[in-house]
């Protein structure tokens, strides 16, 4: 693990998680008040279509404005975006988000791997990826893609995760730059670009 890796020039912070990750976000988000120079994208495994409670829940918890994600929504700094249920969330080269209903990956749509890989191809070193709690192997390939493209990757410390499988699988296969507990993740985010 590299210590004191300085994160600067970050344009997009992408966070993936499955079971047990919402609790982490509920703890993190109230403490994030303002992100002037990067966008936050959340890719969480979620159930039924037409369910907007996740968006509502998250918008209650943070002062950072939430941008509704539709096809071709522009991606801008200072906003939070959430991958909609039943679609894969992709990144276009002109800072636009697009959607895809192709096959589930790792039994999931949205799939964390799909979004992480797509973001890595567009943002390269300007991307930071964080993988949280979960019981599935989604996210590992995506983190590898981010790392290969020069971005920084962070994994939640398995001991601090409700479901340690997803972070553990990622740690074993990616050697992340940081493995952090929830408090550490918060500190890490607060220091991006500063």
């Amino acid at each position, binding site marked *: 693990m590299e210590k004191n890796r300085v994160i600067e020039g970050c344009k997009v912070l992408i966070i993936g998680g499955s079971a047990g990750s919402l609790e982490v976000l509920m703890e993190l988000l109230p403490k994030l008040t303002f992100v002037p120079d990067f966008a936050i994208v959340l890719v969480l495994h979620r159930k039924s*279509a*037409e369910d907007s409670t996740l968006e509502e829940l998250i918008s209650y918890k943070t002062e950072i404005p939430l941008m509704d*994600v*539709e*096809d*071709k929504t522009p991606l801008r700094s200072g906003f939070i975006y959430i991958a*909609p249920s*039943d*679609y894969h969330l*992709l*990144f*276009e*080269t002109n800072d636009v988000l*697009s*959607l*895809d*209903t*192709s*096959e589930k990956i790792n039994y999931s749509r949205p799939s964390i791997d*799909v979004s992480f890989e*797509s973001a890595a*191809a*567009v943002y390269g070193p300007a991307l930071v990826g964080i993988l949280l709690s979960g019981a599935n192997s989604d996210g590992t390939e995506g983190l590898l893609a981010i790392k290969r493209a020069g971005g920084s990757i962070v994994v939640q410390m398995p001991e601090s995760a409700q479901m340690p499988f997803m972070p553990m699988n990622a740690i074993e296969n990616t050697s992340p730059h940081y493995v952090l507990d929830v408090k550490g993740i918060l500190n890490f985010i607060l220091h991006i670009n500063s």
Partner: protein
Amino acid sequence: MINDRELEVLINEVFEYHGFDFSGYSRASLKRRVERLYQLDGFNNLGEMLTKIRLEPTYFKRMIEEITVNVTEMFRDPLFYKVLREEIIPVLATKPFIRLWHAGCASGEEVYSMAILLQEANLLQKSLIYATDINPVVLDTAKKGIFPLQMMKQYSENYRISGGKKDFSDYYTANYGFAKFSSDLSVKMVFSEHNLVSDGSFNEFDIILCRNVLIYFDKELQERAFTLFDNSLAKLGYLALGTKETLKFSSLQKRFKQLNKDKIWKKTE
């Protein structure tokens, strides 16, 4: 893996040799689809793949089949179908004859869903449902109306949420793991190949449904498709899009009025 430049080479070759123009497709998704096929078929480099696409018509057919996304389901987004059932169909019912167009219908699950709604409203007899897709293979499936039996549990639940009151299994016959839908439903369907990139308007419709198709197009190509739909809609006709698709980034938005929060727009001009 395929890089951005190689993807552009492939797009150019496919257009040059086969006349199919993918240049207006959203790159992020197209790249994933091409990479998936490249890996699936075990190519070692792009040259190999291009040669096969150029020289083997059957392989080109496979490519079209595999890079277009054909994921669909019956009564997909059941609440959308509830709005169709309760708000749109009663309006269509006032017309002497109802013309519908499913643009990009894939294997036809949503076309059969619509036919069920029309039949339950006693309107199927005076309706004509055009269903088109770029991909002839999925159209063949659609024509047959045969879908995997294992999906019926979910479809039946979707049907119920959409306001369906009947026993969903009355609409099909189960056989060897497949459900064959009654030909009473398909008798008013016309299936045909149509490419939203290059083909024009072919009729005037009271409603056009194009759901989760335009997400694969970039904004310019979306604009072309919207213009085509506008030219193909009767006055006060409806345009229905997918749950996360919108007319709001288009200049044609002003010619349409969105119904509540649902992804249905009414042509006002």
